[in-house]
């Protein structure tokens, strides 16, 4: 029941994000979809991921998109619904990808596996494993993000110097 409500919510948000004409409305619809996803995570008992989803996607990514949109171009709504050229091919590709994924999931051993009782995953467990088992990937991700940040700052600074 609650899954159905959240799923409808999420899909409606995603559809609206694709079809609405005003870009800001699209972002707000996308936020609805993000929130719905967070709701799904919470329903599955993944508190940390759910809250992180809201914190990162609603609090940061959506705001980032908004900033990028407002700072780059005029946000006048388009007069009519535009469809990208070659939409037939792209939708065919999308359907094909979906079919292949669905088929591979169906035929894999996952479906045959018996459902095990859900382990109680606390935030402490996540923290412990992040700091022990997955410390290298965590650090690599951190390094990558820092590099991206430094790169962005460098690009911005060079532009400023050229303007002078």
């Amino acid at each position, binding site marked *: 029941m609650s899954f159905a409500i959240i799923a409808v919510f999420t899909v409606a948000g995603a559809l609206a994000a694709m079809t609405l004409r005003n870009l800001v409305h699209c972002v707000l619809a996308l936020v609805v979809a993000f929130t719905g996803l967070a709701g799904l995570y919470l329903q599955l008992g993944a508190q*940390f991921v759910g809250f992180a989803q809201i914190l990162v996607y609603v609090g940061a990514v959506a705001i980032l998109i908004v900033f990028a949109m407002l700072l780059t171009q005029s946000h006048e709504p388009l007069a009519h619904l535009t469809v990208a050229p070659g939409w037939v091919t792209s939708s065919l590709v999308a359907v094909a990808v979906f079919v292949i994924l669905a088929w591979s999931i169906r035929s894999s051993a996952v479906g045959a596996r018996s459902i095990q009782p859900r382990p109680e995953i606390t*935030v402490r467990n996540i923290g412990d494993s992040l700091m022990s088992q997955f410390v290298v990937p965590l650090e690599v991700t951190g390094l990558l993000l820092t590099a991206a940040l430094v790169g962005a700052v460098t690009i911005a600074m060079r532009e400023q110097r050229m303007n002078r």
Partner: protein
Amino acid sequence: MTETMDQIFVLLKHRILAHSPVSVQPIFSAALSAIAILVVFATLFALTTILERKGLGRFQNRYGPNRVGPFGLLQPLADGLKSLTKEDIVPHSADGVVHMLAPIVLVVAAFLGYAVLPLGRNMTAINLDAGLLYFFAASSVVELAIFMAGWSSRNKYSLLGAMRAIAQMISYEVPLILSTITAVMAAGSLSTGAIVESQTGYSGIWPHWFVFTPWGFAGFVLFMIAGIAESNRSPFDLPEGESEIIAGYFVEYSGFKFALFFLGEYIGMFAICGLAITLFLGGWAAPFSFLTWAPSYFWFFAKLLVLIAMLIWVRATLPRLRMDQLMNFAWKFMLPMALINLFAASTWHFTPPGAIRWIVGTILIAVPYLLLGRGLMQSNKLEKRTYRFAD
């Protein structure tokens, strides 16, 4: 007797719940907590508006409002009636739906944070394992609401105000969260209940609050500064700078929607203060061991009122910052200090208890503070300001 007084609201809730069927009890319990929070904090909001106006008056050698009712205490009621009866104006070119949703999203997001604040012993609405994360997730939605308000009004000033507000809130969220991590490290949990529990002990009569450690004090100060910025309050209220952008993101709001913005702002401020109490000031714990007979919720609200008074005091004292000062302060002072504080906190944990720990901890914070302060003063050439025309 003391025990009953302390748990009276918890017992009352259980008594009410006992009369309802078992199937609806979880929902009913949540609803009861939500209603209690809504009523208590909305009342506190009304009380704070009048206290703030009277307090600000006294800080500026004025009387403050004293006309409505005895000592002007009915002023919030008059203000509320006024905002209810005012015309609700929506600009012609505004985006109607978003314009209407923005204040609602703001107030809802502001209230969400209270779900994890321990207002007293066993008085947390939901004791989440990732309580602190939830709190910040909920408060991050406020930014979106502010953007919605600023954008949907179709007004340059409100859009500018919204951009300022978002830029400010994103910048100050970093030191805000970094300064809370010290308390999380000390308590070893993200759950607000566990963080308070870890501060309830006493040595002699002195409590084990985190604020009474070098890193805790620095963390508390950093948290409060970032929190004031986060709730867009003076001296960080430049998103609504009247002199330059009229009122920022809520220029185009009138009547009850404006009141909702006002409510949301204060509710957010109380939530930040409540979190500061939870993290650094021992939550509902009594300040001295011989005062534990008073109910736990009393201590929480007493501390909350003290913090609110502090914020009013700060508001009465400091002028508004400029945008570049604000950003420089966030990234050149707050962020390095928060990181240094994190280092100091971890050093504290790995040093055996005793005087040496205190000395090392204090030095680790005081020396960078002094150096950073001196460096910033010199680089900005902050001298006594001279005015060309004012003299």
